[in-house]
């Protein structure tokens, strides 16, 4: 079974966010690019499934929509254990464009299931997984924390409000995952890094598609008024009840 993991290339989580002088574009000078953390957890679990001899998963493909700048991030995904990377050659302007490009690629391929991280650490749209499922008319399953198999059929465990459910899906599923799908990202070892260099990285042309929204400008979040330091639990409660009026 082939599994597809969709990868977004984002600034490292410790990055100090800056913009150009007009505040219209993210300033990526000196930025370290990484696999989007939620996608990295998705990839970690996919590779674990492939390495587990009892699971039918035997190939993990990663795909990203982006220009050549995303290739080092895809190589890192190959080093973690993906077998093949695909780059769709377009710098997307919104989640819809990204989802349309992914769908164009997926519709000609065969995958057991597809995994997307819940959102990307840069534009935080939390949309690609749901949009992709709608474009392809696939079923999406959110908050998946475990995948098991009955023969070749995947059973997805998802977190719901009152517990955990095991579900099966007719047709291909798009899994939308967050922390819990895997707990800690897999770190590539030396052998992985060496073999990643010779693994296939295919570049395909983007299809034409207009974005639905436009990121126009940026600003920093409003500054907090400063902390009020208190001396006792009693003082804290007085403030929450009488001043902030939140209890």
């Amino acid at each position: 079974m082939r599994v597809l993991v969709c990868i977004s290339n984002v600034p490292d989580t410790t990055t100090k966010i800056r913009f150009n002088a007009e505040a219209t574009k993210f300033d990526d000078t000196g930025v370290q690019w990484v696999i989007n953390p939620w996608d990295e957890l998705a990839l970690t679990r996919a590779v674990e499934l492939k390495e587990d001899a009892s699971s039918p998963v035997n190939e993990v493909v990663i795909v990203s929509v982006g220009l050549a700048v995303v290739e080092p991030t895809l190589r890192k995904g190959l080093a973690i254990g993906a077998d093949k990377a695909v780059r769709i050659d377009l710098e997307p302007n919104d989640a819809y464009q990204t989802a349309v490009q992914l769908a164009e690629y997926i519709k000609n391929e065969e995958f057991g299931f597809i995994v997307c991280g819940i959102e990307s650490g840069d534009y935080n749209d939390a949309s690609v997984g749901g949009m992709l499922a709608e474009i392809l008319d696939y079923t999406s399953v959110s908050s998946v924390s475990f995948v098991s198999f009955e023969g070749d059929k995947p059973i997805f465990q998802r977190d719901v409000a009152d517990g955990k459910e095991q579900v099966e899906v007719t047709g291909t599923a798009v899994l939308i995952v967050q922390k819990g799908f895997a707990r800690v990202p897999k770190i590539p070892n030396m052998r992985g890094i060496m073999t990643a260099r010779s693994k296939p990285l295919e570049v395909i042309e983007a299809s034409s598609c207009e974005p639905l929204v436009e990121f126009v400008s940026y600003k920093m979040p409003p500054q907090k008024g400063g902390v009020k330091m208190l001396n006792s639990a009693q003082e804290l409660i007085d403030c929450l009840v009488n001043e902030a009026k939140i209890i």
Partner: protein
Amino acid sequence: MSILVYIRNVNGKIKKQSLELTSYAQALSESLDLPIVGIVIGEIAEEELQALKLYGMKRVLRVNDAQYNKRVNRVYTKIIEQAVIETDAKYILFPDNNQGKAIAPRLSVRIKAGFVPHVMDLPHSYEPFMVYKRAFTGKALASVQVNTDRKILTPMLNSFGLRENPVDLTIEDFVPEIDEPQSRLNVVNKELEAGGVSLMDADIVVSGGRGLRSAENFSILEELANTLGAATACSRPVADDGWRPANEHVGQTGKIIAPNVYFAIGISGAIQHVAGVSGAKCIVAINTDGDAPIFDVADYGLVGDGLKIVPELNSLLKEVLADK
């Protein structure tokens, strides 16, 4: 034309978030001069929906049909699409939670409407339409312009609040035409767990870090959460070490939340943690280290050991809440 509001049906009840969403719609309607219409799916009594009229809701389309009681995203999307056409909705609002995240992107594709999630405030321009949304995981805000005729938003509600505006409300039964109402997703097994408050929906979140020193010590946090009707959460090291379930991790690589009040207990406040909670209206920090970065973003701070302060806080709160 209308502003369509998705009213979440929780086993025949509506939640405060639907009232807040209606308040947000009311503020939009004052600028746009459009009526507010609600759509609610699954069985629900008319009386339960009456609360909406206090906040400006004039008309509700009710899909009062047991076969839709269980949410199937694909089917719900189609029902809402038909409500959009029925009311010629130009603005469609969803809550910024798992439901909204699951349905809104699908609707965006179906009706080719620009979708803006994590909306931080009312639009700062209507012609062209522009709103601020969370970007870079709370480290910045992005102004997003939507050029499509219909627009879909999920506002972050705790930053907006409730605003009363009583009107008359009409409830109409709405019968959608769905060719394939059944789910393609089959639940084969279910394990029930003691249902705490859901982290994504919680007004108050009580969160602990390494400063609590052991998994067992989180019991005092659970007690405080119980008293407050709050959800529990934790920092990354706590989740990574397995002291708490991974789905309680809040921060840049875990869940991103925006409650009314966030208690950070024994959490130093690394940049990645703060990114995940910066949307909180009020942050209360308790930490032994008075120089911990969490105090830079907190509203109220208390230097001290959470293990001592939390039980004290809990018993004092019980008294306060008993008086109310």
